[in-house]
């Protein structure tokens, strides 16, 4: 059983991503990384896909990482950490290492949902003892807010801008959490930095589970979302409370919703503070807003059904 998390314990732990890194003010990613590392009870070695987090935390000759860390390329964080983990198993078997070490890969949604999907799928299927953490800000933010397969329907991006003819992204988001769950790995979950205790419990559970694990964590980007710098946590909370980003886990095939809003908020509460959706509030786009709400209601209903279908009696 994982040890219970307490604030007291957390307040005494060392923060393993130091201050002084060069992520933007208001970025969700370093908060997510700090929470993930704080929740770990084991020594950790991390891999990092090319992206905002990587370019901003290790600019030679400085590093913000107090743990062993490796960046290889954009699409291969999962393959890279699978190599590190395999060497660990080899050296442990040979008696050259005695410590228990855990392995985490961090990637943004571009490096995970898109270019890194094959590498991630391969690593999950091979059964490495590793946790993959996707910090999902819904676009290629590092290169300047280009559309990814994680970009929400209708969001304005620089490669699918909301114009007079096309209202931003015309396709639905890919549901990567479900895709990884379909690999039948022991643990996948969605989390949000607004619900930090939920996030950290999930990390701790993942760390105590042998085999491949996947965590998809929403990570607001005020540059790409066109929102206020100090609204990041509020926006990630609204994502949860509107059920745009439901908090749930699938543990050994059993779905459990870990947070159910007392009163599900309308999706406009999440969309309104974000400039990337401002075109949706023009009179001609009222139908699109309705469609977004319908999609969310349907998916939330489906998730609740999944939870009841498979819950152990």
């Amino acid at each position: 059983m994982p040890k219970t998390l307490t604030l007291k314990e957390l307040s005494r732990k060392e923060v393993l991503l130091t201050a002084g890194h060069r992520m933007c003010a208001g970025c969700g990613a370093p908060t997510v990384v700090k929470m993930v590392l704080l929740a770990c009870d084991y020594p950790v070695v991390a891999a990092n896909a090319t992206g905002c987090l990587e370019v901003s935390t290790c600019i030679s000759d400085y590093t913000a990482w107090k743990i062993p860390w490796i960046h290889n390329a954009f699409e291969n964080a999962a393959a890279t950490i699978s190599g590190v983990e395999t060497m660990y198993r080899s050296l442990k078997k040979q008696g050259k290492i005695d410590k228990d070490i855990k392995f985490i890969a961090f990637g943004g949604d571009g490096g995970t949902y898109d270019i890194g999907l094959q590498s991630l799928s391969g690593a999950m299927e091979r059964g490495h003892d590793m946790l993959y953490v996707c910090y999902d800000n819904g676009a290629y933010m590092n290169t300047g807010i280009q559309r990814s397969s994680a970009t929400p329907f209708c969001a304005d991006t620089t490669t699918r801008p909301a114009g007079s003819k096309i209202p931003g992204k015309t396709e639905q988001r890919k549901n990567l959490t479900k895709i990884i769950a379909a690999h039948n790995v022991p643990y996948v979950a969605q989390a949000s930095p607004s619900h930090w205790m939920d996030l950290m419990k999930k990390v701790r559970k993942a760390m105590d589970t042998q085999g491949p694990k996947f965590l998809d964590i929403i990570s607001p980007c005020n540059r790409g979302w066109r929102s206020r710098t100090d609204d990041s946590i509020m926006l990630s909370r609204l994502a949860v409370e509107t059920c745009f980003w439901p908090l749930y886990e699938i543990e050994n095939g059993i779905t459990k919703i870990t947070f159910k809003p007392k009163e599900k908020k309308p999706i406009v509460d999440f969309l309104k503070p974000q400039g990337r959706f401002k075109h949706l509030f023009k009179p001609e786009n009222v139908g699109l807003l309705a469609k977004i709400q319908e999609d969310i209601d349907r998916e939330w209903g489906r998730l609740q059904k999944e939870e009841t279908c498979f819950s152990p009696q």
Partner: protein
Amino acid sequence: MAKIVAVTGNEASANALRQVNPDVCAAYPITPQTEMMQRFASFVSDGMVKTELILVESEHSSLSACVGASAAGGRVITATSSQGLALMWEILFIASGTRLPIVMPVVNRALSAPLNIHGDHSDAMGARDTGWIQLWSENGQEAYDNTIQAFRIAEHMDIRLPAMVCMDGFIISHSIERLEYLEDEEVRDFVGEFKQMYPLLDLEHPVSYGPLILPDYYMEYRKAQADVESKVAKVVLDVAKDFEKMSGRKYGLFETYRLDDAEIGLVILNSAAGTSKDTVDEFRDRGIRAGLLKPRLYRPFPYGEVGEALKHLKAICVLDRADAFGGSYGPLFLDIATSLYPYQHKPMLVNKIYGLGGRDYLPAHAELVLNELVDITKTGAVKNLKEYIGVRE
């Protein structure tokens, strides 16, 4: 005591890898390399090696996992061919730029399109400027010997670069030859223990691999890597000396065959060099002073030494089993021409493209080329600087 065996090139390389006994191997199937990793995998299944296998979902992930495993702190191998090497291309630079001594046999095969699984050198030639050491092998024995030596070269403290060991697809990888194997203990002692300098798994000394380096320092890092390249040739020769003591087989940066007093010569890589040597002998029997140079260390290319070895010739034909598109000459030709450029009196040069996609290279081709060189020495004129041979008109 050497053990005499009859094995394919793939089998010989797999056996060398077994004797080296690496910590981690990433494997992915591709013709004509597949047999090598299959055989190695059976060594793993039978507990004959300590190696942990990663059965990856692509060659891109294969080399990516090797980078992670090598940085983690141990000896790492993979093997590939053709499209697989092409898919690895991005990570080839990362492996060399990160100074990770991964060893990778490359069973040379043509590149698509059109799709072709047979032997030519397009794959490794496309990777010749990626910062990897390249050792080329004429036959199964050389592939075996080069594989063992590659670890010592790549892991040398002055070098720490990844290395490819090239052999011709099918012609060598799938042909059974007589070979001499070294004893397991001899190989183990020869390669020794490998110690990674800054292992990722050293928790007491956490390091960050793969930083962003901006214009203020990027060039210094590149220069440092270029400086290392200049030290490779000496290490290759030192390792070859030790290897000769153990095996009795002599290796250099390249092999010269009846070249010292030659007037005309061929420069040719890998298996076709063997065919060419027979034809050189026939010309010698007719009183024509023919010779041959076969590069072994192709990257970094020993320009100075090759130039010295060839400068006295009157005419040379460089035979390339890969073309460089864009109106260029074959890659080997470019290197030979560069080697000879500093000399005031240079041999006349011609370039022939041969054997693409597994097209047979026959003694008749070598004869044709040597006859042309005889004509060139007589007339002093080159008709075609570059030409395809053994091709339908």
